């Protein structure tokens, strides 16, 4: 006889806790599954921001979150990609836009035509053939029509203020029926295979059929109580600390993040409507926290306030779902705040849990396929991040030489070798980033393939040049017609005018 899940306790804080609670409540609340958030003290600070891939919009829609409401409440900004600067000392910055580059010509993918043209002297960057990258650089909001639909896959991601996002999620989750018990954790009662209940200081005790550990790196259930081992990936990630700060609003508003490398790590700017969050990942053995704060200000070119520091330990739980406890967010996997990965891992953790929501509390067969999928996704995202370090060209800087020298995981090594040979992208199962994204960063970092598809050689040069020019002209024309993200955002949340009228 099977026992259905009647209660879920989400133990944790902030985005993983409330996004999970909202999702579970909306998915199963109507059937009488009770969702309780055991809310531990927030780890968010006023400076924190949330970076989201375009995929988040789909999740929001399922959760009844209207885009304009989210952007207005969270000082949100559209983000079409991330710009990487100074990861090489000789190469210009490049944009990893959420989009493809060019269009296949005669059924041969564009990259090969570009490689051939480049070998013959073409001086136009690959990203110039990407509508998404052009729009990002011009601060535009992606709008599609029939013509752009067949040429581009560009979509808008977001930057959101973290605390307001959590407030919004909490409000929506509770309005949908999720319960909340706030406090600090006293102890966790175990069963041989899982968690029976959690008790807060003050005595409140919460039992449930299923637990979600959304407590961040603390991993109070998965890590501390169930002692699921944590597999460190620090051999590939040389940064061990994160500094978060905030600067004034940028004008005009950029439509992308900007990730800038420096001697001991990287610094990112993630513009919001009313301020500019700055995040730096760095190696604390090479630079002190105070020096980092100063350096961040210099790199950002703005005065930064409220710098806060926290540790960074990249890696993953060996089995995010263990017993009756599912770890989501950093309790399960911790990646660098690059490439919008952390929020996306939460998104993946939640959507897989909903798809594989257990049907029998006493026979949690779903855990194995869940773990397989989530870890597979995590490894692929991890590899995408490692690629930035592996391909850096900051020569003769010991931090960067070390990062470049670290032997990548075999899956990534294979990808890089294949691409270097011939511009083909090997994709595995459970990839967040598709061919166009890999191409964007590999070419951007300077990994120019040795060879290309010989079919590209068959196209006469004049025809190729004409096609290129047509594409560039098309992109320029379309981008001109797109509204700026500022204008688009103003429709929802007009900023006050500084003049009297």
């Amino acid at each position, binding site marked *: 006889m099977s026992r259905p899940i009647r209660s879920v306790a989400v133990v944790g804080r902030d985005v993983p806790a409330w996004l999970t609670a909202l999702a579970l409540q909306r998915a199963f609340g109507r059937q009488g599954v009770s969702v309780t958030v055991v809310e531990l003290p927030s780890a968010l600070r006023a400076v924190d921001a949330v970076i989201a891939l375009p995929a988040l919009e789909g999740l929001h829609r399922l959760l009844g979150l209207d885009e304009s409401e989210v952007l207005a409440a969270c000082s949100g900004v559209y983000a079409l990609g991330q710009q990487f600067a100074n990861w090489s000392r000789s190469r210009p910055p490049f944009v990893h836009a959420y989009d493809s580059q060019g269009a296949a010509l005669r059924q041969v993918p564009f990259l090969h035509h570009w490689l051939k043209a480049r070998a013959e002297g073409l001086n136009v960057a690959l990203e110039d053939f990407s509508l998404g990258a052009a729009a990002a650089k011009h601060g535009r909001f992606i709008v599609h029509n029939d013509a752009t639909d067949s040429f581009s896959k560009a979509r808008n991601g977001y930057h959101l203020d973290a605390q307001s996002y959590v407030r919004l999620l909490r409000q929506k989750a509770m309005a949908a029926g999720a319960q909340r018990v706030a406090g600090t954790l006293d102890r966790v009662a175990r069963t041989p295979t899982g968690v029976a209940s959690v008790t807060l200081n003050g005595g409140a005790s919460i039992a449930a059929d299923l637990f979600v550990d959304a407590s961040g790196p603390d991993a109070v259930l998965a890590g501390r109580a169930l002692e699921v081992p944590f597999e460190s990936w620090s051999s590939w990630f040389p940064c061990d600390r994160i500094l978060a700060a905030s600067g004034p609003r940028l004008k005009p508003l950029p439509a992308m993040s900007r990730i800038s490398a420096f001697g001991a790590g990287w610094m990112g700017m993630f513009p919001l409507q009313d301020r500019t969050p700055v995040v730096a990942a760095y190696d604390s053995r090479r630079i002190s926290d105070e020096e980092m704060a100063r350096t961040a200000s210099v790199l950002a070119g703005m005065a930064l306030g409220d710098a806060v520091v926290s540790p960074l330990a990249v890696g993953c739980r060996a089995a995010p779902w263990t017993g009756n406890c599912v770890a989501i967010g950093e309790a399960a996997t911790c990646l660098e705040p690059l490439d919008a990965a952390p929020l996306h891992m939460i998104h993946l953790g939640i959507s897989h849990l909903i798809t594989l929501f257990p049907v029998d509390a006493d026979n949690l067969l779903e855990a194995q396929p869940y773990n397989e999928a989530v870890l597979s996704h995590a490894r692929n995202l991890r590899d995408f991040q490692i690629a930035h370090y592996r391909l850096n060209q900051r020569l003769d800087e010991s931090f960067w030489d070390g990062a470049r020298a670290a032997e990548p995981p075999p899956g990534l090594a294979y990808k890089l070798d294949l691409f270097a040979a011939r511009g083909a992208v090997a994709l595995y199962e459970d990839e967040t980033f598709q061919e166009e994204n890999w191409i964007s960063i590999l070419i951007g970092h300077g990994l120019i393939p040795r060879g290309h598809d010989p079919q590209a050689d068959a196209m006469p040069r004049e025809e190729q040049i004409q096609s290129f020019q047509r594409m560039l002209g098309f992109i320029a024309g379309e981008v001109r017609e797109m*509204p*700026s993200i500022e204008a*688009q955002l*103003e429709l929802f949340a007009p900023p006050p005018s*500084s003049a009297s*009228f």
Partner: protein
Amino acid sequence: MPSLPTPPARIRDIVIVGGGTAGWMAAAALSKVMGTQAYTITLVESELIGTVGVGEATIPMITMFNSVLGIDENEFVRETNATFKLGIEFAGWRREGHSYFHPFGQFGVDMDGINFNHYWLRWMQAGGGTDHGRFNAETEAARQGKFGRTGDGRPTGLPNINYAFQFDASLYAAYLRRYAEKRGARRTEGQVVKVERNGQSGLIESLLLKDGQTIRGDLFIDCSGFRGLLIEETLKAGYEDWSHWLPVNRAAAVPCAKVEDPVPYTRATAREAGWQWRIPLQHRTGNGYVFCDQFISEDEAARLLMTRLDGAPLAEPRILRFVTGRRRKSWIGNCVALGLASGFMEPLESTSIHLVQVGISKLLAMFPKGGFNPLITDRYNAEMEADYVNIRDFLIAHYKITEREDTPFWRYCKSMSIPDSLATRLEIFRTRGEAMVVHHELFKEQSWFAVLVGQGLTPVDHHPVADLLSEDELKLRLAKVRTSIQDRVNGLPGHQQFIDKNCRSAAG
């Protein structure tokens, strides 16, 4: 039909009585268009009679006047210490603390055959933003203190910047005097003591000056100011008084020092018994308190004005007295009145110089060859009347649609009765956001829209064509318009920067 008196063989001698902006604009235009080969142009003015000139603002039509004269704009700006004007800020007219902008140029882009305003109204009425200024390039540029000339002919898809000037009126008069004299107009110093008329025809034949000179003429242009030496004192045209609708009848004016870079717009601030203008020039700022002496004394008004300057005063305040209204006829026989001689309305919408320009251009269009045809004269008068009435109604609207009740003056204005033509227009606007402007009117839909909405008359509905778009398509179009405006304004230099680069005067 009565037979005309025997006309002179041809009109040849044109005499302008009075200088100032009106007189010299007439002299300049006539000297350019009619020339001094077939005509003589004589302007009689007295240095003794001070001209009213103060810092004066204009509207974009003046660029047409300048181009007819063939004036180089940068030179003209330099010579008159001018700055550029993108519109007028109306502060405190709707209520204290509130401010709106009446820009040149239009809002948005007309789409599908109807005015953009309807799309904005749909958006606003459905709960969208309330700031339509964001969809107007001139407003955004004014907000950011920017200016540039954009009409160089290259198509950019970006909105153009429509502008006018703010200048020292006496320098403008002097500039035009130089222009006219270079083209053969003659200036005679003197005061008119007697006007000689033909016994039979009644036409004016000559003027006797104080020094004994006689100035003969075929056509006389009366630019003698409020007194209307020819049109009123001699020809008894009569004056239509509009004080009951536009009660202000005094102005105290004083220039003050410049304290910051000039903003590219005029400000009109509502006050307890009228309103105060602020016109930034390159070298100083012109200020004035336009008031009604029924509600405040001249001394009190002048005193208050002096406390409301943002820089040190550069002179003692001067008081002007006037009666708002118009000469019943501007053209009688062979005399055409221009400027203050033909009528006066407060400079709330910078219309004074424009009315001179209009008077001149109509005169040129209907310029008599030999005799004076009453059909033409009547036509001229009718058109001038229509223009005056249209401007009058527009000005009345500023006062009538107010939320202010804090002083007797405003209570009067809020409750006064208004002309039927205006009342109808306001009601139509309230229902569907259209002022139903007809072609010849000076103030177009966008001006009525800016002022009426700014004053608080918010339309409750809009044109049905604006409902045909889906909401997404509407948002997209609004965002695109906004983007093109941002792109335009982002590309403009600062106002002072523009002046420095192109047309900085010696004094500026």
